[in-house]
């Protein structure tokens, strides 16, 4: 409740400010709606880095942070649309219905919704990143670098995005090392440094010597650094938090897409699109590879990165079996986007059940 109060207060202040500014400016203006605080150093932080790129390209931007995925989102969107914004980016899955609802009321405003699939009106586009491609690279590194053959994975919530990441990571790790086991711990939070640290510690105590994460804080890489095991950065380059532990990070790079889309609005060339970009388009970026990795692994990873970018290699190439041994993807085939978007089963080799 208290969070909600502050957020509403801050949002109203920001909106008031926007209304005043809107009355004078005539250029293309972009607005961003964030689920979390820009100070999370994770998901929202990276979107805000993208927003700053739009500013740097010479456009005016506004953002509202900490907007709940409820009727509140509609209210915020309506006010942003009313106050002279030409394009509005809604950067969380839960904004899907509010975005489409408000888009209908404002046909002249463009809406861009992240990680969703509903485009009910011609002024709604969707975009997302193929983070699983990054996890293919992490899995390859983890499978090679582990000595205990136990890899820990701190997961957040059982949704397709996270399951897809676990699967892609495990498939890649098994490919280089068939003996590995992926131990998964669900923290049921995106963002609670204390809890994430405890989850990572439990995995390390149980013998994991490489830790992967699908939660947002830097607590896990710090725990790994203290314990002397390896880890990977999430969303942004976390190397400076744990120089010895972090082998590489998968960075979310929204800037180029945002600049591109805002420019399209300015030129009048904006059209409805469904974008799902990966390493090839630069939306998923692999940070520098740590020098502790053997040279041959580094060059192998570089090649894999290039092949994923060109499409020569796909993260989900058959034969892929689920935990019960049923064929998910036939030999020589790759998983289509529909299957990826709704992936809610573990592949063979992942231990445990998906929480229901």
């Amino acid at each position, binding site marked *: 409740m208290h969070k909600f109060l502050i957020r509403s*207060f801050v949002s109203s202040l920001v909106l008031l400010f926007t209304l005043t500014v809107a009355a004078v400016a005539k250029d293309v203006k972009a607005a961003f709606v964030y689920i979390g605080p820009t100070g999370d150093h994770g998901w929202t932080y990276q979107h805000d880095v993208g927003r700053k790129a739009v500013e740097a390209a010479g456009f005016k931007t506004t953002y509202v942070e900490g907007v709940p995925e409820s009727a509140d989102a509609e209210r915020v969107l309506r006010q942003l649309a009313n106050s002279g914004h030409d394009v509005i980016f809604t950067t969380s899955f839960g904004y899907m219905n509010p975005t489409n609802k408000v888009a209908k009321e404002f046909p002249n405003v463009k809406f861009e919704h992240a990680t969703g699939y509903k485009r009910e009106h011609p002024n709604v586009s969707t975009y997302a990143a193929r983070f699983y491609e990054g996890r293919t690279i992490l899995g390859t590194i983890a499978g090679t670098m582990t000595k205990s053959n136990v890899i820990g994975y701190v997961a957040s919530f059982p949704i397709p995005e996270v399951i897809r990441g676990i699967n892609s990571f495990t498939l890649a790790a098994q490919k280089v090392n068939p003996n590995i086991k992926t131990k998964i711990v669900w923290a049921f939070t995106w963002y609670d*440094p*204390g809890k994430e640290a405890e989850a990572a510690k439990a995995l390390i105590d*149980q013998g994991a010597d490489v830790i992967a994460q699908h939660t947002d*804080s830097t607590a896990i890489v710090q725990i790994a650094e203290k314990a002397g095991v390896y880890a990977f950065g999430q969303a942004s380059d976390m190397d400076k938090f744990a120089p010895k532990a972090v082998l590489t990070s998968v960075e979310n790079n929204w800037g180029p897409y945002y600049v591109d889309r805002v420019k399209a609005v300015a030129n009048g060339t904006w059209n409805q699109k469904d974008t799902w970009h990966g390493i090839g388009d630069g939306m998923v970026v692999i940070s520098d590879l740590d020098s502790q990795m053997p040279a041959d692994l580094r060059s192998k990873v570089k090649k894999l990165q290039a092949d994923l970018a060109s499409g020569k290699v796909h993260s989900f190439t058959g034969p892929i079996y689920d935990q019960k041994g049923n064929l998910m993807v036939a030999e020589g085939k790759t998983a289509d986007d529909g299957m990826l978007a709704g992936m809610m089963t573990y592949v063979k080799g992942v231990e445990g059940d998906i*929480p229901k």
Partner: protein
Amino acid sequence: MIIDINFVGLIIASIMASAVPLILASCGELITERSGVLNLGVEGMMIIGAISGFALMTVTGSLIIAVFGAMLAGVLISTIFAFLTQTLITNHVATGLALTIFGIGISAMIGKNFVGIPGKEFPVLFEGLKDTMPLLSPILFGHSVVFYFAFALPFITSYFLKKTKIGLIVRAVGDSPESASNQGINVKFVRYACILYGGAMCGLAGAYLSMIYTPQWIENMTGGRGWIALALVVFSTWNPIKILIGAMIFGGLTIIQFHMQAIGVRIPVQFLTALPYIVTIIVLVVISRDSRKIRLSTPSSLGKSFYKDN
């Protein structure tokens, strides 16, 4: 699975480390409440302590300044609460809630420039003795000074309340401010002091999180631990030793449920994550079920404003 004795020691040590902020904040709040003041601003004071400690550490580079600065920040923000509730006689519950909202907001504002900066290594004591004894040495050695302080605090608090004259005065003020005042005790002064002390301990608890436990600053990093600390005070029936037990059970179950997940115990994960909350309350209710003792240790005028005309 083979249970290695050192493995058990490591788990106990991580349980203790996770209990530290809860013990510090709860013991601080306990003194405040024993003087008859209900301060629901624990979460707000902790987060202020967290950002102050981290900011001072980054800016000055001195861990000592940072730790004491965080405690001072807790004192300063609790002074606002003390002034409102004791001098202006506002409602404790509403003021405390406002303090939490204020703390979270202002810490986010100060913290804007400190996101994404790694923390400094905090020195640990007795590191050389870490491999001397199986089981015991990971528990006893190689921790920060705040860790040792936190585990001494419940005993100090208990001694202070039961055996010292000032402790008696604090309890008298919490039970019957009228009688205490008639005895010549300055109720307002005692309550101010207890609120400020509570603020200092919450500030320290926050600094432990941002400087030692997970050395970094991010918004809302206390993650509701202040509310858990508040609940511990009530469910322990204002007994510092039971706070220690409650904090250990809570921290223990949080960590053990992760271990159970990693081992692959087939219990629904949602149930496991709810376990710490449920079990801590049940255990504390069961060990505190003696109603005579509860009456004795509950500050009778908790949350009631005291105003003296003179």
